[in-house]
């Protein structure tokens, strides 16, 4: 059992949890993920590690409440426990030697982009952060991003906070203005990563994306997380989750991500009703 030492609502649908998991904290690195299970009949869901504290033995996760499992997870209070919490899984992000990097986070993907930006900042890289959200209510981690970046830009779809527009608009502007990025690291919805990669390809900038496909075991056993990268099938859990974005088949990933859409929808509604009744 893994105790929740802190729980904080970041916005109406996104929550941060600090979980006591000393063995995971001891080994965690930016880019890696954990798999958790909330209860005995629960499913295993992967969540990227948002932060870790080796001294206190804690791991931070940030999740969006999207389906049954995240709803149930969100029912847990501080000092209560998560049944299973395994990690760190996946390969750490390879950020060694990068001097000038643009980190792009979209929505809850910012939770994953943050530790990468932080690690880059700590190794002395020049970090530019572009974060994008649908509207001002969904903004997370702005203060944190400012602390670990040299330049930070905020955009929203409706212009209710920051500049109105897409992360790609800012990226294009920066590149056109002469910013020389060794690498762009983009983490967010698949569709955002797809468009970022389409743009960076034109400018021939190496781009890394963090993939978060459907997964069960997370150790290379089930193959559910497979994706096509440069025409080859890779397993996100052991070969990733970071991949060269210019090689990833995003359309396939988007399609595969929707495999259980109907099931998830039904479960979400049933859980919603149940929780409302209980409340």
């Amino acid at each position, binding site marked *: 059992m893994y105790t929740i030492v802190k729980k904080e609502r970041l916005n109406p649908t996104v929550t941060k949890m600090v979980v006591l998991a000393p063995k995971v904290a001891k080994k965690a690195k930016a880019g890696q993920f954990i798999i958790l299970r909330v209860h005995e009949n629960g499913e295993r869901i992967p969540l990227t590690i948002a932060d870790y504290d080796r001294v206190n033995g804690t791991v931070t996760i940030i999740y969006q409440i999207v389906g049954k499992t995240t709803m149930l997870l969100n029912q847990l209070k501080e000092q209560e426990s998560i049944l299973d919490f395994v990690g760190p899984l996946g390969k750490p992000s390879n950020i060694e030697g990068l001097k000038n990097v643009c980190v792009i986070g979209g929505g809850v993907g910012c939770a994953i982009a943050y530790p990468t930006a932080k690690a880059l900042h700590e190794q002395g890289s020049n970090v530019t952060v572009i974060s994008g959200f649908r509207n001002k209510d969904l903004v997370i981690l702005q203060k944190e991003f400012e602390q670990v970046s040299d330049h930070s830009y905020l955009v929203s779809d409706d212009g209710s906070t920051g500049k109105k527009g897409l992360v790609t608009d800012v990226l294009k502007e920066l590149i056109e203005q002469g910013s020389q990025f060794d690498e762009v690291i983009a983490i967010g919805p698949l569709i955002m990563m797809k468009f970022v990669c389409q743009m960076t390809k034109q400018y021939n900038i190496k781009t890394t994306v963090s993939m978060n496909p459907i997964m069960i075991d997370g*150790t290379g056993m*089930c193959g559910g997380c497979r994706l096509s990268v440069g025409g080859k099938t890779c397993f996100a859990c052991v070969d990733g989750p970071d991949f060269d974005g210019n090689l990833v088949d995003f359309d396939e990933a988007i*399609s595969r991500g929707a495999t259980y859409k109907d099931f998830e929808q039904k479960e979400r509604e049933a859980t919603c009703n149940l929780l409302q009744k209980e409340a």
Partner: protein
Amino acid sequence: MINMANEKVAMPIQDGVTRRNNFDEVALGYDETMAKEEASRCLNCKHHPCISGCPVKVNIPAFIKEVAEGNFQKAYEIIHETSSLPAVCGRVCPQETQCESKCVRGVKGESVAIGRLERFVADWYRHHVKEEKKPPVSNGHKVAIVGSGPAGLTCAGDLAKLGYQVSVFEALHVAGGVLMYGIPEFRLPKEIVQHEIEGLKQQGVTIECNSVIGRSESIDELFEDGYEAIFIGTGAGLPNFMNLSGENLKGVYSANEFLTRCNLMKAYQEGADTPIQKPNKAVIVGGGNVAMDAARCAKRLGVEEVSIVYRRSMDELPARKEEVEHAMEEGIQFQLLRNPIRVIGDESGWVKGVECVEMMLGEADESGRRRPVEKPGSNFIIEADCMIMAIGTSPNPLIRSTTEGLDTNRKGCLITDEKGKTTREGVFAGGDAVTGAATVILAMGAGKTAASAIHEYIQNKE
């Protein structure tokens, strides 16, 4: 009195139509009368050839003699001397190619039903004897086991009996490995697996779930933690695909994924949080036990048409004969001498068909089996909204890529000597991680061999 009947006492089973609608165990097991009757078919041969066919060397004639005399507890104790998991072996061992293939009674009729008797004894013990096993006196030495599948559990059990302090590290949230995630409930009830594991815990074995060695801790760190020897029994690993066009469409599963969702995550039960597709027509590619398991799970999930596509003929099917017969009784269709060449998708990215070609058998290949070759122009399409690839696995890279001095072969399997010693001092390995995908009992045999090698290694070190 020796029972000279030429045939085994029949095993009561659920009939094919009933059982394809449930996940309950297919074979129901002998009762005491049947067990005694079958046991008295054993000639108790002096040279006991059956034992030589058993990878863990169960003293078969001795336990069968006790069964014939109604001393079931004594029979259990004899089996348990060499086998840590009798209830499991009695169900999933391919006895027909092992102990039973050596049985003298098999020359003129059917061999003695050694497997069924083993199962009976283990089940009888589980139902009748409630005493807790006691941990033996500790010898003060610590051994780590990586993976809690059949190889790891057997190795753990044998070492615990010798007084070692054994810790088993398991990546998943529950111990048992393939016995839990792979082999379906109707062949091996999960309650039985957990009961056997409980027995190991009573002998002092500790099991730490949610531990991915190679990530959460390295082999080197285990040594630093004071473990004097380490056994790697991490199993088969990454599922193989065929690199067909359309293989990543929705509805294409590896058998590992399909079975894990179904068995480990209990997706077949109402109310499970883990989803599984409920297809109308499923194609399973492959001819081994895993293919049979996947096909039979699909049938039980309500799939109307389940076809097994295998590139060789019935004679070469690697699955156990009993599994093939059971699959047929349950209405699974066999498309033999067929091979998939393309997966066809619909406009929303779901599988809608599998294009296959007919095959014919040519010259024998290095495995001794006749090599299948395509019949040109024989292409045809099987309609299906689900395709399950059961064509084997490749070893998991997690440990070999994070451990110095651990050599692997071309395929990525760990290299060991015949005793299970790897190229790294103090590290032993066995099971599918060494051999590639094989059977539960071979993994148990390897776990057993490694346990005695570890014992020898630690005793000589002093």
